[in-house]
């Protein structure tokens, strides 16, 4: 088990409430970076980051191009941009929407898998489409930890169900378990390092 360095989360329909509950248990000294792609309408600049920031101990901001990744850094994809993970930093793109989405969860998760290999955790939460299914499979293929919100507990089950179809080995967790498992995965990192 290698240390986890980045947690990449994708959410769509019903995502705001789900994200709040995933982030809420994370402590201020959480040892990995968190990057988030949430489908939403264009124009709500910064609002999502502020809402999430109010719900957790970590500081959440809207990502800027080449912003550094590190322990406890939480970055949200800006509306109408793809968010990509590179070694040590994020990058943005305005390439065509993927799965009709910009930001696309597939783009985020695939890039996290490519940049961090088995140091990446990928999470697909509630949603009414299939974005993220391909990205989560990539996380698994590169040796990372794939997690899917239990479709039965999701506000919309289509997106987590699609992710499970491409990544049957993913851990299926109820919303409230996800944060706890992330804390455990983070603690393993501390042990690996000491």
């Amino acid at each position, binding site marked *: 088990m290698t240390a986890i360095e980045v947690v990449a989360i994708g959410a769509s329909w019903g995502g705001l409430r789900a994200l709040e509950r995933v982030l809420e248990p994370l402590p201020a000294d959480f040892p990995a970076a968190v990057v988030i792609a949430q489908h939403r309408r264009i124009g709500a600049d910064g609002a999502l980051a502020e809402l999430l920031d109010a719900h957790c101990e970590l500081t959440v901001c809207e990502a*800027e*191009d*080449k912003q550094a990744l590190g322990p406890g850094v939480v970055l949200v994809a800006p509306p109408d941009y793809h968010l*990509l993970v590179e070694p040590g930093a994020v*990058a943005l*793109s305005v*390439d065509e929407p993927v799965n009709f989405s910009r930001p696309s969860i597939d783009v985020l998760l*695939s890039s996290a898998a490519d940049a961090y290999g088995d140091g990446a955790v990928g999470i697909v939460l509630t949603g009414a489409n299939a974005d993220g299914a391909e990205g989560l499979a990539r996380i698994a293929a590169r040796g990372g930890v794939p997690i899917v919100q239990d479709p039965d507990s999701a506000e919309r089950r289509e997106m987590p169900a699609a992710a499970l179809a491409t990544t049957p080995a993913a851990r299926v967790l109820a919303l409230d378990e996800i944060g706890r498992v992330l804390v455990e995965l983070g603690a393993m990192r501390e042990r690996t390092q000491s």
Partner: protein
Amino acid sequence: MTLNDDEGRERLEIELLLEAIHRRHGYDFRGYAPASLRRRLWHRVYGEGLETLSGLQERILHEPGCMDRLLRDLSINVTAMFRDPTFYVALRERVFPLLRTHPFIRVWQAGCSTGEEIYSLAIALREEGLLERTRIYATDINNAALERAGSGAFPLERMQRYTENYLRAGGTEAFSSYYTADGESARFDPALGRSVVLAQHNLVTDGSFNEFHLIVCRNVMIYFGSALQEEVLQLFGDSMTRFGILALGRKESIRRSRHAEEYEPLDEAEKIFRRRL
């Protein structure tokens, strides 16, 4: 962190491909941001009906048209007229009053792609009475994109969205007065294009060619790695008049750059900066 075999092989294939492109065709993509570059390279692999990056390399070296197709994938940035309408409000309120003090105004639209932003800028300048004494130098790495920009025609189906953007951007006329429908195209008033000079220019390898009062380069440098961004910011600094103005995309920043101290913000949210001297 460890990477598996597939990952190591892919990195090697990308390195070799970029080296081949550089040595064979002169385009240097080696300093581009790796994650989006990788996606775009794979897009071309699939577009060619190939299965590997090495296969793409072979075709790049042996088939002349393939490089043009790849260049299109790597260089055409998707944009819209009056994308980020509040940017144009900031231009009108904070930038144009400063430009107005000059008898003749030079603007560099760097990485103009297919021209949507050139025409947006020209319309805003005209409505503020500045277009007559402005020259917009619009450059791009890709000649095919420049040709489309030069045609002054955009898909008619997009005009409804552009009209909404235009109104939110502080437009003062009827947007439809700027174009005429021609089949599936909206053909823009040629008078707007008369202030525009189009030229091929590669931000990575070409140097400074004039001194500008305003440089607009939005969502172009996001495709560059940090080291290359520094070089381009140096180029922009060398290409500006005293107190020149630099406008970047909403989610770009010079805060982390070694050039940060050379500028002061004119509009923090819209990423518009003014050179300190």
